[in-house]
C-alpha cells in the first residue's frame, strides 16, 4: 500500500519536474526572461518608445555593417518611436579581433563616443577584421576621435569590461543567437537587415504615429 503511494508521488514529482523543465526551456527559446539592459552608451532613442530593438552585433561582420546603416536610417525616420540597444555577440571562431573591438567600443562608450567609434570600426572592418597581428586601427580610431587611448587600454583589460562582454555573449547564446546581426524587435526575432525591415514593417503604424508626435 505504502509502496503504491510512494510510487504515485514519485510519478507526480517526475511529471512536475518534466513539465517545469519544458516550460523553462520554452521560456528561454521565446526570450521570456527579464530584459537585461545594455549600458547607456549602447542605447539610443527614448526608453519608453513603443518599438524596442535589441541588436546582437559583431564589428567584423559585413552584414552587421549593412544593418548598422539601416538602423541609423530607421532612427532618423522614426526617431521617437524607436529604442535601440546594442549587445555584443562577437563570432570568435571566424573573427579573431571582434572581442577586442567590442571591448574598445565599450571603453570608447565610457568616454562618451561609442557610436562614433563603432562607426569607424564598421567602416574599417576589412582592414582589421582578419589581421594576423594586433591591428593598429583600434588605436588610430581612438586618436581620430581624440579619445584617451591609454585609458581605453586599461578599460579593455579590466574585469568589468570582460564580464560585461561575456554576459552579452551568454545572453545571446541563451536566446538562441547563432548569426549576426540578430535583432529582437519587441521580442520578435529577425536575422539580417532584410528580416529587420520586414519585421519593423509590422510596427509601421506605431512607428509613424510616434514619429508625428
Amino acid at each position, binding site marked *: 500500500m505504502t509502496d503504491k*503511494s510512494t510510487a504515485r508521488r514519485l510519478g507526480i514529482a517526475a511529471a512536475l519536474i518534466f513539465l517545469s523543465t519544458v516550460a*523553462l526551456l520554452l*521560456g528561454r527559446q521565446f526570450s521570456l526572461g*527579464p530584459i537585461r539592459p545594455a549600458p547607456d552608451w549602447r542605447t539610443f532613442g527614448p526608453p519608453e518608445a513603443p518599438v524596442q530593438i535589441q541588436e546582437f552585433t559583431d564589428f567584423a561582420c559585413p552584414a552587421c555593417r549593412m544593418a548598422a546603416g539601416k538602423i541609423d536610417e530607421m532612427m532618423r525616420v522614426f526617431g521617437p518611436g524607436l529604442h535601440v540597444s546594442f549587445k555584443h555577440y562577437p563570432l570568435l571562431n571566424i573573427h579573431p579581433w571582434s572581442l577586442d573591438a567590442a571591448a574598445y567600443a565599450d571603453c570608447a562608450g565610457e568616454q562618451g563616443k561609442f557610436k562614433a567609434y563603432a562607426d569607424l570600426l564598421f567602416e574599417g572592418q576589412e582592414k582589421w577584421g582578419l589581421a594576423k597581428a594586433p591591428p593598429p586601427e583600434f588605436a588610430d580610431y581612438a586618436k581620430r576621435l581624440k579619445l584617451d587611448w591609454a585609458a581605453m587600454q586599461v578599460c579593455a583589460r579590466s574585469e568589468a569590461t570582460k*564580464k560585461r562582454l561575456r554576459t552579452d555573449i551568454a545572453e545571446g547564446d*541563451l536566446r538562441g543567437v547563432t548569426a549576426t546581426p540578430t535583432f529582437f524587435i519587441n521580442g520578435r526575432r529577425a536575422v539580417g537587415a532584410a528580416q529587420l525591415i520586414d519585421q519593423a514593417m509590422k510596427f509601421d503604424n506605431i512607428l509613424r504615429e510616434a514619429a508625428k508626435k
Partner: protein
Amino acid sequence: MSETPIKIKISALLARLVVGGVFVYAGAVKALAPAEEFAYAIETYKVVGPKLALLAANVMPWVEVYAGLLLAAGVFTAPLALFNLAMLAFFELLLGQAWLRGLPITSCGCFGAGGSTSISQEFLQNLCLMCLAWVAFKFGRHWSVDQACAPAPEAGDAA
C-alpha cells in the same frame, strides 16, 4: 488521534505556497537569464572562485524551481520543506558573512541580477521564509499531493 485545527492547516498551506512560490520565482528568473550574470553575483560573496560560481549558477536555479514546485504541490512535503529550509539557511550564511565582512554587494543575486534589496533586508526576508519553511515542515502535509496519495486510514489524521 486529534484533528489539526483548520487555522493551522490554512497557515501551513499558505506557508508551503509562499516558500515554494518564492523558490519557483527566484529560480525561474535566474534560469531564464544568462548563467554568467548570476555567477558574477555569486562571485561577489568571495566564497568560491569563478569556475565554481558558474557551475553553481547553472545548477542552482533549476534546483530552486524543482524544490519550490514540489513543496508548493506538497509532494514529499516534509523532506522538501527541510531541503528548502537548508537552502535558506545556506543563503543566510552567505548573506551573513557578506554583511559582517562589509562586502560591496550591489545585487545579492537572489532574484537574478535586477530587483535586489539591501543585504540586511534580504537577510530578514530569508529569516521569515525559514520560519514559514519550518511551519510547512511541521504541518504542511494537509491539502497536499502527499495526502491525496496516502492510503485511506491516514488521510484525515493530525500531522
